[in-house]
């Protein structure tokens, strides 16, 4: 019998976009690749969506993700967000740790809507897609979560297996505006 206690407890972790070429100069329109945010996906238990919405309503980093569904994000990988949320919500909701399953990108700049319009079939006018609005959309055949977190700031979440394809699409969408790409610190 082998000694199981000799198995490594810490595994190497690599960002799916760690090998990409980043821009030398940051342009006015910029795509930031978050290093390793803490991400939790929350689905309300049957009939509990109002109670869950009330609890999440007082928290930061909460994104609407469809009926009875939310995504909660914290830039700090040490935030232990899923565990804290699971404790707080108890039997009201199901909480899933999506930190290693999804990549988070932030698109900012004066042309961010025109860039997104090349791939997303959604009306992004500020009066229609307001601050804090969000949901899943199809972008170049990839299902991603899009939310507006600032006046000219959009946040994108996508499965890590699609990260390189989506980044390639976003780079092509932003080529007209010299979109720059960089990893966050």
């Amino acid at each position, binding site marked *: 019998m082998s000694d199981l206690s000799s198995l490594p407890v810490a595994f190497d972790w690599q960002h799916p976009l760690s090998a990409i070429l980043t821009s030398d100069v940051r342009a006015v329109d910029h795509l930031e690749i978050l290093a390793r945010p803490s991400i939790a996906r929350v689905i309300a238990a049957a009939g509990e969506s109002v109670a869950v919405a009330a609890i999440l309503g007082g928290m930061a980093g909460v994104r609407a993700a469809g009926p009875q569904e939310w995504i909660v994000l914290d830039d700090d990988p040490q935030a232990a967000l899923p565990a804290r949320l699971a404790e707080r919500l108890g039997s009201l909701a199901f909480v899933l740790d999506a930190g290693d399953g999804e990549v988070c990108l932030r698109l900012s700049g004066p042309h961010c809507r025109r860039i997104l319009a090349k791939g997303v079939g959604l009306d992004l006018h500020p009066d229609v897609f307001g601050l804090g609005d969000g*949901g899943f959309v199809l972008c170049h055949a990839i299902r991603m979560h899009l939310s507006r977190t600032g006046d000219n700031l959009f946040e994108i979440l996508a499965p890590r297996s699609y990260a390189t394809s989506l980044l390639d699409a976003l780079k092509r969408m932003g080529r007209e505006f010299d979109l720059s790409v960089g990893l966050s610190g």
Partner: protein
Amino acid sequence: MASLISCPHCGPRPKEEFAVRGDATLLRPAPEASDEAWHAYVYLRANPRGVHVEHWQHVGGCRRFLVVERNTLTHDVLSVADAAEVAQGGAA
């Protein structure tokens, strides 16, 4: 097919975000129903020219099943509702 479907959860979205799941007017026969009734339920489909009610799934968005009433001749989408709510409400 119209180019936009208004999802009750996500708003107007391009039809490419949706997948059609077929006729929503079919009613499942009783378990002991005749072979003819089951054959009709499983295999026989009308191809109406005009207003038709279908199940569509918003696979690129909220992933909910929807009941879409549309006109196959004019491509107008007449109504869209969440399939779960339709089932609970008892309306077809």
